[in-house]
């Protein structure tokens, strides 16, 4: 059990550093901002108590906020998907079916993982980008930013499932 938590702790450090030191520095365009660190919340074991998912989600968002000087922005967005993760898991798997303990690509297949990650990443990005501009002026421009960034984030997340965090 302790080994699992150490593994998740190291993964947490890893995704935050990747996000802050590499992806946040990419600056491809205002329309393409990948937020890869949500992978940490996606990969938490299914049996993790929901209060713990919420707390970990808040902490992971807040640690990104720390680096980007955006207090509360990422924390609020990650708390949102921390809360919606369980409903999304049930939605994607179907309520009756038994789920693998670790919601990874390897355990559940590419199609399952794609739907699961697209849904949560889309919710996260939607919340994040609209809170960032803090208005609905330029609604469609922000929507395009959300969609493009979601595509890129999911791409990076799926890619990482083939390279690292395979189990």
């Amino acid at each position, binding site marked *: 059990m302790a080994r699992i938590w150490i593994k998740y702790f190291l993964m947490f450090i890893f995704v935050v550093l990747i996000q802050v030191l590499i992806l946040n520095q990419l*600056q*491809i365009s*205002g329309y393409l901002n990948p937020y890869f660190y949500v992978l940490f919340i996606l990969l938490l074991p299914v049996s993790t108590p929901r*209060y713990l998912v919420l707390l970990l989600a*808040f902490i992971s968002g807040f640690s990104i906020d720390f680096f980007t000087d955006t207090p509360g922005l990422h924390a609020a967005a990650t*708390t949102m998907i921390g809360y919606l993760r369980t409903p999304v898991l049930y939605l994607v798997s179907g309520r009756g079916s038994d789920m693998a303990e670790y919601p990874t690509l390897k355990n559940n297949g590419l199609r399952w993982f794609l739907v699961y990650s697209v849904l949560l990443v889309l919710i996260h990005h939607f919340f994040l980008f609209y809170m*960032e501009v803090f208005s609905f002026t330029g609604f469609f421009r922000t929507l395009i930013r959300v969609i493009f960034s979601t595509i890129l984030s999911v791409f990076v997340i799926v890619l990482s499932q083939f390279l690292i965090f395979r189990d």
Partner: protein
Amino acid sequence: MWSLFRYLYRHHVVILFLFLEIIGFILIFSYNSFQRAGFINSSAYITGKIYDRYSSITDYFNLSIVNRQLSEENARLRESLLAQARNEDSTGTIQYIRNDSVRSFQFIPARVINNSVNRQHNFITLNKGARHGIRPDMGVLTPQGVAGVVSHVSDSYSVVISMLNLRWNVSAKLKRNNYFGSLTWDGKDYRYALLNEIPFHVDLMEGDTIVTSGFSSIFPEGMPLGIIESYKKEGGDNFYQIRVRLSVDFKSVTYVEVIDNRKRPEIEALEKLTNNGKDLD
């Protein structure tokens, strides 16, 4: 009483969720009113160290660009030095006054350790702070022109509000005819900003140079901001819509100078007396 606890326990997930979201929103709202000195100062200490280490590696990749920018600046400075030497013979008094106003500004060189251009509120982190004489509200210049203004300072790092930030504008003027307005960023493209408040009777040309007006005591007068890319008259408005190509390439900003206006306390005290200085900022 028991049933209350049972009720709370049964809904502990929703309650915790709402609680955390409320914390998040309080942080966001306090950020939006710009009262966030505490947050950024505490973060600058820890994250500043990490960014500093990291940028000391990545800086090597920018060396060729930085070299070119520095040599261009060198050439420009040498040119203005020559021009000044020529001027001094003919118009002694005017030059004396100008020199005096230039001398009230002191420049502190610093290195950029973190920077972004793709968010709506972009910030730049510098590797120097209060220990090196940097204080909030000092202007920040790059070799090509204005980059931003210092917002928060820790002991050895400082955070600069980039020009690419929806919450900042700078007092600007047309170099050719001195009409002034304010330059703001619209959050769309890191290469372009908008010049507002230029009335219709002003005669404009594409390619006109936009410089700082010197009204705000943050920047000296005449620091380059950009050139006019295009302009149009929008129906129902009293002012031109002017698109400005920024002279600074914010993607490659590496070395900057922080401007310390030694006369600023004096100017501000005076403006406080008349109580109208803030309109011009």
